[in-house]
């Protein structure tokens, strides 16, 4: 009886292993079904989802204009203190004083990509960009000013 059990054990063991090996061998002989991506060699063809939350950016149009009014809604919505809005007062040619942003400081190293600032923004001035390669040699380079130098607010945005 012992011998019979021993032999059955060996046979079932070998068949179960071979069954598993057959699956592995199938993919070995069918390289087209392998789905591994060769990053970073495939950078040129790498498709990121358009909604991917990589970093906060401020889109500017051709005239170097943005839509940020400096209302600090994003700063209040941010749970980590990632965004600091520095405002200044601009004097228009008619002599009216108007609030505008001096700098929208964004600290990438504190950001958790929670998207709360984008949802809070009333004028869609900021959005998430799918860029995810953020490594730099110096930590200070992660502190960014989102509005481009010399940019101003688009006409008609209050």
């Amino acid at each position, binding site marked *: 009886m012992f011998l019979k059990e021993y032999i059955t*054990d060996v046979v*079932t*063991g070998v068949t*179960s*292993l071979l*069954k*598993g090996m*057959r*699956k*592995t061998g199938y993919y070995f002989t069918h390289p087209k079904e392998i*789905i591994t991506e060769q990053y970073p060699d495939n950078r040129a063809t790498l498709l*990121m*989802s358009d*909604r*991917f*939350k990589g970093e906060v950016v401020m889109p500017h149009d051709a005239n170097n204009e943005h839509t940020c009014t400096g209302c600090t809604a994003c700063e209040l*919505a941010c*749970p980590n203190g990632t965004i600091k809005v520095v405002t200044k007062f601009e004097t228009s040619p008619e002599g009216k004083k108007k609030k505008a942003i001096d700098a929208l400081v964004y600290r990438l190293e504190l950001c*958790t*990509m*929670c*998207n*709360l600032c984008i*949802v809070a923004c009333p004028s869609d001035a900021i959005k*998430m960009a799918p860029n995810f390669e953020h490594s730099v040699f110096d930590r200070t380079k992660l502190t960014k000013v989102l509005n481009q130098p010399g940019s101003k607010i688009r006409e008609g945005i209050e």
Partner: protein
Amino acid sequence: MYNQTEIIKDTSELGADGELVINMGPQHPATHGVLHLVVTLNGETIKKIEPHLGYIHRSIEKMCESLTYRQFIYVTSRMDYLSSHINNLGCALLVEKGMQIEVPDRAKYVRVILSELTRIASHELWLGAMAMDLGAFTPFFYAFREREMITDIMEDTCGARLTMNYIVPGGLMYDLHPDFQKKVKAFITQFKSKVTEYEDLVTNNVIFQSRTKGVGILSAEDAISYGCTGPVARASGVSCDIRKIYPYEVYDKVQFDEVLETAGDSFARYMVRVKEMNQSIRIIEQLIDNIPEGDFVGKTKNVLKLPKGEFYTRVETARGEFGVYVVSEGGTTPHRIKFRSPGFSNLSVLNHISVGSKIGDLMASMGTLDLVIPDIDR
């Protein structure tokens, strides 16, 4: 907390009886994170296991006290990162319950579909990692092939692969991706055709069976007295599925079975999770074609203030019952917040089920408990 000299002292004291103290972790690769187990051995037999926590403590509960009811949801993704969507759902449900916010039907359906996708992704990762703990390297890649499809769906719709933060009090952050239904259906077809590969590779493998059957047996009484939930308790025959007992969102409208096993050993815990994936697929199939049109977020006030009082909600994550308890003083931030994480109770049972077994079996019983350390150590 032990320091290094104390551990050495302990060893010398115990050495007289032929006992040996082994520190597993905090960097042991098989512990999936920074769990520190102080294992007392007699020969190869385990006499005592002491889990030491605190290596990844980030004081999330205290942090949440300074965040508003919109902001504190994102932190919970960082606790049980494999079921982050379900954690977020639990917090959002609490705020909605406290403020009586109406959630549109569309949001409810999408929340349940994404919860079940998260559950499948979590179980897939567990399956691969647990098989790897036991020495089988290949299943990891097979499991990650299907998991990758889910993370792609998450990336399209939620914008992130792991820490989604897609749920806001009142509904969803933004509407579904146009390709969502198509991609989920493609995933279901792929999953159904490939799930047999797991059976060939893992379930029916004789080495895997002999390493897990009869190892780490947990009786139903002990599962209840230790407070185990989720697949760990269900493998011992304890019916504890929150989706069945206290249905939230649209779980009362869908047909699915609560998976129960009676053996209570590591293999039963494995089988519960594999069968649960199929039940999740069943839930998604019932909902995916019936997502109602309409708003994806209900009307909420700009500043959320919970009324004075205590609130508690629970949801079923991939690991068990996740509870959120909030004491509110009527302000914009919680006065006190407490998370009931399933991993903590499930870890506490490790000493009980491992004493008397060999140290090689510890990997099997610990792997099938499905521990996520940041969830235990908030």
